[in-house]
């Protein structure tokens, strides 16, 4: 069979997918680019061409800068915490102990919950009147009176990060747990004979086998965290005082609450660009890390 026919056939087989992708991703993308150069509103007639006005206004606005900072803060802190807690949980769950199988099964629960359910659950926990957190903290004497964790700008973001971590650390833990199974028993034994303590053993024996899979988890989680919308929308709607307004929330508010489709589109494209840069950068890192333990 000629290679030309093979290539043609491959394209033919991919064609339906390409058509669907173009229709549901390509076309809206192109239209978003067009919109971003106009002053279009969500309702009414199509907007007039305004050049780079939307981009200039948006990039220089304090709203955008604060949202970019909030997003970065949310992504860095929550992903770091998820990675650390996930790896620690995996290390614990790889030990031999009674009830390990049950705990391993339970681990997946938070991750399996829909985000909306998780967000609602944490809103109940943080509730200023009957929330479990307030109750627990006052009962053990760490808190004098009930607080509105999600209602104070100083605590809302941290409260969100905790809720996000609780939902997403199991993913990291599962990936790490799977990777731990690949650490050869002989190398662990060799390190014991060589006199490596727990930290040296983690650094020189376990980490090389974890690095590749963890890098994949890191990429997935960072990109997800940068695009975060649902958990924040359900818990705080970007408040209080816009302290938890991330880029995705800002895009939504701009395009749908304020109905400014043009500037909303330009904002959405900037978020897309940031995530693309992250994805490409991480992709290169993953390729470099992969194979380090072979």
């Amino acid at each position, binding site marked *: 069979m000629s290679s030309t026919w093979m290539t043609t056939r491959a394209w033919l087989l991919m064609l339906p997918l390409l058509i669907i992708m173009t229709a549901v991703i390509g076309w809206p993308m192109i239209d978003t680019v067009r919109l971003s150069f106009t002053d279009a509103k969500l309702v009414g007639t199509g907007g007039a061409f305004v050049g780079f006005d939307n981009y200039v206004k948006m990039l220089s606005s304090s709203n955008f800068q604060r949202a970019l900072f909030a997003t970065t803060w949310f992504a860095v802190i929550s992903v770091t915490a998820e990675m650390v807690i996930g790896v620690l949980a995996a290390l614990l769950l790889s030990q031999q102990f009674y009830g390990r199988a049950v705990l391993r099964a339970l681990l997946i629960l938070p991750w399996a919950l829909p985000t909306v359910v998780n967000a609602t659950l944490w809103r109940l926990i943080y509730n200023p009147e009957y929330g479990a957190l307030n109750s627990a903290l006052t009962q053990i004497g760490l808190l004098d009176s009930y607080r509105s964790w999600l209602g104070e700008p100083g605590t809302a973001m941290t409260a969100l990060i905790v809720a996000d971590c609780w939902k997403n650390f199991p993913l990291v833990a599962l990936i790490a747990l799977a990777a731990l199974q690949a650490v050869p028993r*002989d190398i662990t*034994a060799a390190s014991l*004979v060589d*006199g*490596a303590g727990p930290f040296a053993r983690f650094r020189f024996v376990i980490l090389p086998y974890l690095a590749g899979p963890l890098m994949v988890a890191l990429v997935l989680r960072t990109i997800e965290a940068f695009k975060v919308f649902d958990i924040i929308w359900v818990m705080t709607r970007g408040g209080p005082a816009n302290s938890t307004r991330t880029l995705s929330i800002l895009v939504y508010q701009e395009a749908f609450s304020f109905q400014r489709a043009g500037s909303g589109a330009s904002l959405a494209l900037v978020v897309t660009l940031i995530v693309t840069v992250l994805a490409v950068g991480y992709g290169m890192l993953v390729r470099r890390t992969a194979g380090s333990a*072979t």
Partner: protein
Amino acid sequence: MSTLTIDAIRKSYGPVETLKGIDIALQSGEFLVLLGASGCGKSTLLNIIAGLGEPTSGDVRIDERSIIGVHPKDRDIAMVFQSYALYPNLTVHRNIGFGLEMRKVEKAERDRAVLETARLLQIENLLDRKPAQLSGGQRQRVAIGRALVRNPKVFLFDEPLSNLDAKLRLEMRTELKRLHQLTKTTVVYVTHDQIEAMTLATRIAVMRNGRIEQLDTPENIYNRPATLYVATFVGALPMNLLAGTMGDSGVTIDGTTATVAVAGLEAIAPGRRVTLGIRPEAIGKSREPLFRDARCEVAELTGPELVVTARIGDQRVVAAMPADAGIKAGDEITINADATAFHVFDAETEQRLN
């Protein structure tokens, strides 16, 4: 230079007992090979010596100091694994020096020791490479280097040559023998390869089902196997086994009229069922004719010798003849077997009788 004493070691996993009382006393500088088929308990025993597993009961002593309950790093042992077990992200230099690094040996001293070991193993040109950039043989040298550099009291080897190809295995075997002659460190070496055991060991412990069948020098293991199992396990060509019955003037081989008068069986009562064993090599060297009407079924030239499979009645005998014996399939041949070449085992207990 250290002695190693293994004293009544037992190991159970739930109701399953994998080691059923092992006693071995090694003199300083001995090379002990634990030989046995998979699942015989040899690796379990090695892991207990290394501290990677604890025995259910019994004691292990190095220089008369008990090491049970002592952390592996404090036992002053070094171990080489079948899978090499090198640290993938460290260079060869750091792999070899890792044990010293963990023991906080000063860098200059460490570098000197690593270089010296690398020179001994002829891998000084590989020091900057990572394990992934090495061949199997080179990796095993690095693994041996990592063990050597610490100058331990006892070396433990867990099937170190099993992952190498045949040619390399031969080379490394010679290399290991050379290193042992040089360092004279006490060695415990696990393998299922009887040629490795025969060539390397000063003593071999043949293990079966968690017990030692025989603990002896390679010569005695080969020439005077204590049990039928040892007799069949050791030897490049498997020992010929012929069923027979004790008579007044010797053992009569089943299905034939041939009788062999083996010395040392005077106390055995006539009528007892026995198994006669004779090595294929011994047949080639024997002068006394045993069967005159054997028929050659297959003749295989291996180079130095001609391996002849012949049929006697309903039994098969393999003989290693000189390469120029000129025997072909279908030939009628005489099988020689001197009475002194026979090993006689009790058919029931499988213990040696002569």
